[in-house]
């Protein structure tokens, strides 16, 4: 059964991750590369763009890594594409295993019939709700403290996912109230604000990036949930068919 869970999660992640990586290469990465050409143009903006500068101030253990003048990074072209594709597939596997784990804990199997809803919930929790407070960022855009944003991102995803799960388990009146609170509280608390400074990245790049990444994420999540469910159904049919075939 553990094998089935991992198999279904990885098949779904492979398929959905491949589609997501393809959309990224054609629509998302060109915007990132375009935005990177503006990095360092505005006198102050390169400070925001370099993760090393944030790390120097707070995280001493990593400081020596960032101190090297030449940080390793995949070379533009095939190498960068390969790394991005690999990272997207690994992230997809991570998301698939997490929703697979949730389905185990909650005892709500992911099936072809409800996989779309699982995907929609994943999109709400891991993409749309975090983006509501932390809009998808292009390199070179001003942003608040990284650790604070990561914390808010994680807490918002967890809280929104909790709301979806609660409503999947019960539709009692109190559940709607609690779910509404879980969805709203992160936004009432508020995401770490970006410093109020000019960005060298043109606004039309940023708006296109936000729309494209949210769209690509939705495609990814709906595919992930649906394929996950389909594979689960196929595995369940097989395991049910085997004992029947043995006796009859």
């Amino acid at each position, binding site marked *: 059964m553990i094998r089935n869970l991992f198999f279904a999660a990885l098949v779904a992640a492979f398929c959905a991750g491949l589609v997501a990586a393809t959309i990224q290469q054609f629509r998302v990465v060109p915007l990132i590369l375009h935005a990177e050409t503006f990095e360092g143009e505005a006198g102050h903006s390169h400070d925001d763009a370099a993760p090393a500068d944030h790390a120097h101030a707070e995280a001493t253990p990593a400081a020596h890594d960032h101190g090297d003048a030449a940080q390793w990074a995949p070379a533009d072209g095939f190498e960068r594409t390969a790394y991005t594709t690999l990272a997207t597939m*690994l992230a997809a*596997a991570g998301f698939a295993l997490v929703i697979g784990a949730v389905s185990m804990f909650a005892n709500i199997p992911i099936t072809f019939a409800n996989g779309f809803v699982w995907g929609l919930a994943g999109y709400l929790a891991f993409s749309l709700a*975090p983006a509501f407070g932390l809009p998808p960022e292009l390199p070179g855009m001003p942003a608040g403290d990284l650790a604070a944003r990561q914390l808010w991102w994680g807490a918002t995803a967890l809280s929104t996912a909790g709301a979806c799960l609660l409503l999947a388990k019960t539709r009692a009146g109190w559940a709607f109230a609690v779910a509404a609170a879980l969805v709203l509280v992160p936004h009432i608390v508020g995401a770490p604000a970006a410093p109020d400074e000019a960005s060298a990245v043109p606004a039309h790049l940023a708006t296109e990036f936000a729309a494209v*990444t949210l769209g690509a994420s939705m495609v990814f999540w709906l595919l992930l949930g649906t394929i996950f*469910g389909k594979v689960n159904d196929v595995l369940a049919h097989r395991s*049910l068919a085997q004992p029947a075939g043995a006796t009859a």
Partner: protein
Amino acid sequence: MHEPGAEPIVYSAHGGCSMNTATTTVSNSGLSLSLSQRLIAGSLALMLGLTLLVGTGFAGDFRLHNGAHDTRHAMGFPCH
């Protein structure tokens, strides 16, 4: 038990939306797992899944950051 092919779909249709009484009995026909099985499978999947997500989306190490850079931006993870 007589329609092995149909039952998982029936179970699934109810399992996702409403819940409880009917689903547990149907699930016993072959799909369901014991609590301990679910906890073990879920824990393993959660640990591996979170490791992958932290590694690709949240890691501070510059190699992981730079390797997964475009993915982090594309997936909406805080990056810089």
